[in-house]
């Protein structure tokens, strides 16, 4: 570690903006909550297993309890029957929170344009990153994670970014 490096002066002070320091901390400690329903959840299993190893990006502490997580990965088809549950779990997550919509079904309903499938989860909850593919390869999910981390590092976190979002189930 740098701190043990004798070349470095021990009395260094680093000056940065608090926002950036917090963004840097958030970036590498995302705790995902997997809302896995279908095929994409199997690809998430691959992303978590040793070949792709999502822990390289600091996001391996998979929580299934929404209250302990700050990144929701919606992996799989969301039907109308499932939608209120998705919304409930999203609301149980504490701020700050982000959502990755993984796969064609979660993004747009995919090729299930029919009476039972929600045509994209963004009809119910706000989404930060969309991942294309049916199912996406694990690399695509990792790419989504990296792009989210880049946002956290470079952009100011705006807790009100979804302030005007109104989902289909919100007016009840």
């Amino acid at each position, binding site marked *: 570690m740098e701190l043990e490096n004798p070349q470095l002066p021990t009395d260094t002070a680093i000056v940065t903006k608090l926002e950036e320091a917090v963004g840097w901390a958030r970036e590498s400690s995302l705790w995902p909550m*997997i*809302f*896995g*329903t*279908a*095929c994409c*959840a*199997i*690809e998430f*299993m*691959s992303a978590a*297993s*040793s*070949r792709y190893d999502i822990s390289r990006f600091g996001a391996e502490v998979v929580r*299934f309890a929404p209250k302990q997580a700050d990144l929701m990965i919606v992996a*799989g*088809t969301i*039907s*109308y*029957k*499932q*939608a*209120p*549950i*998705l919304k409930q*779990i999203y609301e149980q997550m504490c701020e700050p929170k982000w959502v990755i919509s993984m796969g064609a*079904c979660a993004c747009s309903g995919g*090729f*299930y*344009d*029919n*009476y*039972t*499938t*929600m*045509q994209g989860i963004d009809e119910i909850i706000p989404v930060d990153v969309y991942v294309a593919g*049916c*199912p996406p*390869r694990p690399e695509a999910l990792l790419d989504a994670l990296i792009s989210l981390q880049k946002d956290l590092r470079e952009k100011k976190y705006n807790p009100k970014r979804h302030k005007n979002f109104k989902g*289909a*189930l919100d007016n*009840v």
Partner: protein
Amino acid sequence: MSKYITILSKGLYSFIKTKYENGFNYLLDITAIDYSEYETEHKQQYALVYILRHQDFKQVIIIKTYISSLYIDSISDIFSGANWLEREVYDQYGIEFNNHPNMRRVLNHREFVGFPLRKSYPITKGQLLYEVDDLLDEMKNHLKYKNIKDKDLMFLNIGPAHPASHGTIRTYVALDGETIAAAITEIGYLHRGFEKSCENHTYNQIVPYTDRLNYCSAISNNIAFVKTVEEMLNLDITPRAKAIRVMLLELSRIEDHLVCLAAILVDMGGLTNYWYIYNPREDIYDLLSKLTGARLTNSFMRVGGMANDLYDGFKADLKNVLIKVKEGIDEALSLIKHNRIFHDRTQNIGIISAKDAINASLTGPNLRASGISFDMRKDNPYYGYENYDFDVVVGSIGDVYDRIMVRFEEITQSTSIIKQVMKNLPDGEVNIKDASVVLPKKEDVYNTIEGVMNQFKLIIDGVKVASNEYYSSIEATNGELGFFIVSDGSGTPYKVKVKSPSFSAIAAYPSMIEGSLLADSILTLGSLNIIAGEMDR
């Protein structure tokens, strides 16, 4: 192989009862057909179809009855497996069953209005659900039925969004301490309208949809579907195609069992096994993506053959994959085979007896674990399975341990079949030569007018299947996966019904966990290998 009988609706119950007593004691499927857009000599709009299998596991009868009213007697007192199948018919077609213990929707949500598989229901008409069913009334009835009263019960939902529910299954349990006094299971959270979508696509367009039934072993679903269509067309595919299909079927079986075993051992707390078992699955993915272009949802089969032949060097790659699989399995087994914790947690847990398993229409490894040696590959061989040397693996009492170990051993048997296939892989084409079924070669499409026309007609109209009603099945990874297809002579099926192994398994699940500990119910669910896509369709 299957016999077709049409009877009057009045005598249906007694007819099925007689058939049951005469040995047709295995219910495969119940479905309905809406004839409102199909010209028949019958004036009734709906017909019900019951598919039964004989206890010799060879004969199949399809019993059909045209109904003039929307009421019919339930057969759920003869077959426990009929309970949920009848609920599904009610849910999708609005046909009610008299004397049914629990006539309510099973796949669609409780606020749903209308019956989606009726031809009059528009395919894209979605309906929002605002509040989830609390299941209290169903639980109340169930407790009354089980005669449980004066007990201090605690009610708990497991799922639908729970890591141990393997997707989207919801089990609502009444707990007496740690023991489950009563359980009800609710499914349908991944109902994606497969059967309605099929009615709007040509036969080859359906192949990608079948991938997503059992997404852990996509190719076996492809094969089950195209095999049914090929039999309706009276096509005999080439010997090479048959052999490759057998090889891919067995590879999917390995793939599927690996994910099931990895998941259940994680449920038990054995995370190390997960790494050992999941890594060879990655190797299978590599092989399949090299062959088909996709890791998970391969869409490799076509009516009349398959997308393309094996690539050069496939044989060597496959050999390496099989070595990796064996290594993974051996490592995992070395961790659990003599492990006291593993034995204590799995033996005598979640038992289903042979008789109950048959009555509940359990199939595949789950049925074999109960000691019934029913395997379509032996009992109704197809694609030359009779020429390969392999054992049907059976368990002894049908507990979690048996179901796990049957799967471990089946991987070994499948490996052996694959080796035998690759040793004597026939040469030749993989697609049949029939311009009305198989797409022309690309150079013909680009260079000749006949080729362009042929390609255009096949893509736009689809493969024309003469009007017929047909059931066919294969031994897929989870058991007998069947398709019942009604065709009206066009390139699009009039109706498709999947006989789904997971659907029967989940219907039997609540009765399997009643009386056991809550923690054991998780393992019981894992050992049944419920795949939500196949269950909810």
